[in-house]
């Protein structure tokens, strides 16, 4: 059976990812995602009693020596920012006073 992604769920997912889509795009994306999810159903039948893999190097806790090194200059870090003020990135207000 084909899995459904309702338009409500799709809108919620888009909002969670800070994205928006036109009504037309929603109409296109929803059935495409349903088809892809339907394809994944081959995994459902499979019973796997193995630990998961999230990386393949086997490396753990890779640290450098804790000493001060030179880092990117402020002007370089701000170079591509559209809005800056006194050496900081300027953003819209996130928290408002009541």
């Amino acid at each position, binding site marked *: 059976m084909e899995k459904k992604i309702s338009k409500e769920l799709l809108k919620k997912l888009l909002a969670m*990812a800070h994205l928006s889509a036109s009504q037309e795009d929603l109409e296109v994306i929803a059935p495409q995602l349903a088809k892809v999810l339907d394809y994944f159903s081959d995994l459902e039948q499979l019973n796997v009693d193995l630990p998961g893999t999230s990386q393949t190097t086997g490396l753990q806790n890779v640290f450098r020596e804790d000493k001060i090194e030179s880092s990117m200059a402020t002007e370089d870090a701000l170079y591509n920012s559209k809005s800056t003020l006194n050496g900081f990135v300027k953003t819209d207000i996130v928290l408002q006073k009541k």
Partner: protein
Amino acid sequence: MFGSISETQKAILSGDIKCVDVVDHFLQKIDEKKHLNAFLTVTREQAYDAAKKQDKLVSSYGRAVLERLPLLGVVVSYKDLFLTKGVRTTAGSRVLESYIPTYSATIVERSHTSGMIMIGKTNCDAWAHGASGENSDFGPTLNPHNNEFVPGGSSSGSAVSVAAGLSHVSFGTDTGGSVRQPANFCGIYGLKPTYGAVSRYGVVAMASSLDCVGVFSGYLGDCKKVFDVVRGTDGRDATLKNGGFHIGRKPVIGVPDEYFSEDVDPVVLENVMQALEVFKGGGYKVKRVKLPSTKYAISVYYIVQPAEVSSNLARYDGIRFGESREMFGLEAKRRIVLGTFVLSSGYYDEYYKKASKVRTLIINEFDEAFKSVDVLISPVSPSTPFRIGEKSADPLKMYLSDILTVPANIAGIPALSVPFGRYKEFPLGFQLMGPKFSEEILFEVAGDFERMTDYKFIPV
């Protein structure tokens, strides 16, 4: 004279040509082949500046210059996913349309320190999402063998850059086949190294547990030379390891049944079987092996990869750099939403967690296979190049093009796309996969094959 690295360097050191002439040659080719839309930025001035400096060094030091610049006079292009200080880097997306990096990727620095000369940044599917080059926000790249067909993707422009003779070599990225498949569709070599062999510092991230930096070249020897210069730890990418080994005997070639299924175009299969006959004729031992979970690879890949994509693309906020998230194209939106879904509470166990377990299963099967064989041979793509527009309206159909290349990414093992044979105007080929850090063995086997078939690269 402008063919392989050694041929070009010989001409430079004997005084027949200057580095500036090499740059002239490739810039002229880029102008002639502009319609292929392989380049998003051509770095004409930087290339001439670098070449002039090298010409001075050649006249002062002669042959000894190669000790300082082993890749002197080698013209390189970079997929527009590699940060290049002072040179616009777009990732093929309008989101980064005017982004000018203030630092360079490790591989860019290492390339330039070794003598390579950057000629430009190449077109690609936006954020490396695609198998055709059609998802670029700057228009599709065309296959140089027939302009109505795709060159493969996502490193579309890099493959065309080498295949059409617009640079000696090119760097791409391979998350699920994005170097090997376009190399296959364009008729050149494409190396996807072991995960963790080449630094990804300064590379726009797609799916961090799968992403690899890869190399395109027309000549096998060039691929090895470039790989040797960029590989190894850099103190910046924490996933890096140094490694490599030889086996000291003729490698045994494994043929995994599951890669030769009826879903693969008979033309492609028949050609790989011919390659296998060449190996047998050359005294190679060939063994059949089983990788039964290969059939789950696409599901695993298209769960794990979008999950990591949704996380990596979350950093594009339009505040510190780049345009707003409104500028993401449809394919990026699809992958972000899919990734957000498979990671979301209530679906995580069913999708992401399950996929990560099946990933272990696939890895274990490769480990088992490599107990009895040294390399695996298989087709690269299940089909010959497809027409522009043929699959673009059906994402699932496009995703299925990756079916034979994603397993190597899932397992983190190296794989090399080797050109061999033709069908109509299109080149064909096969891939060799080996255990982690077996790149030397892949080069050795491919080199032997090149000698046995007397293969010569001719740019389109």
